[in-house]
């Protein structure tokens, strides 16, 4: 089942020589790195800084890149580390683990995704801006796995490597994150009047 998701993600590189081939291998994924950085930082200027620093680090560490593995996952990992380092440097809260978040959210969200619930009907009417808003309100631990798996189409295993946690954790964060996302989207749909309140 899980062969090449999203097409030719996997690139092979021959010999590793002082950053040779970096532009050809890594720069085609600049848009994807930028998108991920944008979702992590939720701020364009900061995202650009993260991407720029990440690319320079990736260039310097290009000899450590393992040919045959997913280039984008490798680049995302670097960008995420740059982002987290910035958070720590600036004394902002880092919840990379997300374990506490998950348990907190579990109690407040309930089981909103039960089949046949009203939320299922509004998918066609969701506005792009709503998904942005809903994603941006998600805690980092959930947001990042949704961005990696749903938006950038990484496999669970690749996402687990980027985030540095077991595949099982990715799976549970993904299902809870999606659930939270649907609750937010349903809320926005109600605001727009697309979804009528049902008793």
């Amino acid at each position, binding site marked *: *089942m*899980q062969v090449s*998701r999203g097409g030719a993600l996997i690139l092979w590189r021959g010999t590793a020589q*002082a*950053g040779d081939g*970096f*532009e050809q291998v890594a*720069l085609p994924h*600049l*848009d994807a*790195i*930028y*998108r991920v950085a*944008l979702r992590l930082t939720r701020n364009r200027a900061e995202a*650009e800084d993260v*991407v*720029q620093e990440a*690319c*320079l680090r990736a*260039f*310097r560490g290009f000899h450590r890149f393992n040919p045959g593995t997913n280039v984008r996952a490798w680049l995302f990992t670097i960008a995420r580390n740059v982002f987290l380092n910035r958070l720590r440097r600036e004394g902002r809260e880092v919840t990379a683990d997300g374990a506490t978040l998950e348990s907190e959210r579990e109690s407040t969200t309930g089981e909103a995704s039960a*089949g*046949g619930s009203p939320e*299922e009907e509004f*998918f066609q009417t*969701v506005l*792009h801006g709503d*998904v*942005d808003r809903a994603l941006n309100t998600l805690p980092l631990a959930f947001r990042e796995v*949704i961005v990696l*798996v*749903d*938006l950038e*189409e990484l*496999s*669970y295993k690749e996402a687990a490597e980027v985030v540095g946690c077991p595949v099982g954790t990715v*799976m549970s964060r*993904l*299902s809870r994150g*999606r659930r939270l*996302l*649907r609750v937010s989207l349903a809320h926005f749909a109600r605001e727009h009047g697309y979804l009528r309140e049902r008793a």
Partner: protein
Amino acid sequence: MNCAELQARLHPYVDGELPVAETTAADAHAAACPSCAARVGHEREFRRLLRRQPREAAPPELRARIVADVRRARRRARAAPWLVAPAVAAAAAALVVVLLLPVLRRPAPLVAELVNKHIAYAQVERAAEITSGDPAALEEWFRQRAGLRVVVPDYSPSGIRLLGARLAEAHEQRAAYLLYEKGHTLLSVFMVPGVATELEPGARVTYRGHEYAQLEVKGYHAVAWSDGRATFGLVSMLSYDALLECAARLRAEREQRASL
């Protein structure tokens, strides 16, 4: 597979992350269970919704900055590999020495000029305009001929024989040129009035409390210094030690005479 089992695997199932056997079982259950088929359908629809999101491109200016960054980093890596790989710092240190040597060896204009004159005079049969082994006679000759007050040191105790003197030009001004010989090795002593503004950027050595520029030009040894009134250059195939000793004696003699 029953409803609960499918529900537990719903996300990996729609994501295509289930092993083949489980996927087949889930397919079979969903085909037979409308309720589960609906859940699967909704979940897939939700995933499609997320994937429909516009995919932003990185700003062109950001791309340009990164391309420039990478080019700069690559240039640096090639010019100075140890900046990128600290492990080769030791090798780099050796390289620095090799790179610096030509710099140290690059002669200052004055010293290079003196060395060239030394080479030229060494090839001339009668390099001296006045041939004499008497320091006092040569000093008198310079004073009468060019109004130069020249101290002609006597190196004979060291086996360095005075051959003679001539007027030379260095830095486009008249200079005193003294010829000595030790065995068959020529020693040239140049005295140029004034202080050379750019004597020599290379190696400095301190000998008997004074600093000298010491350098090799075209295989010849040169020692040069300024004493505030004139600039001096000694050129020879003799050792640096011998040149420094000659320089120190000349210096000492000038100081002694100046105090009289």
